[in-house]
């Protein structure tokens, strides 16, 4: 696609429910990243995918958070038993292979509100 696409744009869920957030990266980008941004804060790294594998999951805040990527393309971030502190904007980014010195392209994010 032309850019990184995320869905849904906004999600309101009740505490305790599970949610799935989707990211469709730029075609051909093998690197994919998930970040979380709380109101007025910087971006917090969650997880990185290279192809379908996730060599760096160090930012996932708890075992309620998981992510997968299939076919080297679409990624899903799942949050189980959501809590109010999970409310944030979840941003996905992709970049080219061997992207040590290239930019990352971000989607518009999913704003998650847990009530």
């Amino acid at each position, binding site marked *: 696609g032309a850019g990184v696409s995320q869905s849904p744009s906004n999600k309101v869920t009740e505490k305790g429910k599970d949610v799935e957030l989707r990211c469709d990266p730029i075609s051909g980008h093998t*690197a994919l990243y998930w970040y979380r941004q709380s109101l007025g804060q*910087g*971006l917090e790294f969650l997880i990185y995918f290279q192809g379908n594998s996730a*060599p*760096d999951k160090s930012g996932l805040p708890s075992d309620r958070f998981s992510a997968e990527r299939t076919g080297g393309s679409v990624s899903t971030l799942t949050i189980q038993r959501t809590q109010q502190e999970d409310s944030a904007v979840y*941003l996905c980014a992709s970049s080219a292979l061997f992207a*040590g*010195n290239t930019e990352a392209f971000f989607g518009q994010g999913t704003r998650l509100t847990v009530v």
Partner: protein
Amino acid sequence: SQQGEEDPQALSIQEGENATMNCSYKTSINNLQWYRQNSGRGLVHLILIRSNEREKHSGRLRVTLDTSKKSSSLLITASRAADTASYFCATVPFFSGGYNKLIFGAGTRLAVHP
């Protein structure tokens, strides 16, 4: 943990003035990047400076990097109201495993008044 710290946290200027934002970081880096964010949603890449570079220009943007001080600055010249946004620096740590693991600071909120 956040690698970069920007200052000031907020900056308010008049159109036509220059805006300078600073970023400090803690560990050795491969590169440092600046991003812009409007209305708390998607980020747009502005400029990337490699660890062996000292200055880069892109239009009205000028970025400097001082690896000895572990700091960078972003200068926006002749600012416009449309430059109003949050600006983030992000570093790719040297030992990040060769991928683009961007570590972001908390950002500077720039307001440019007509």
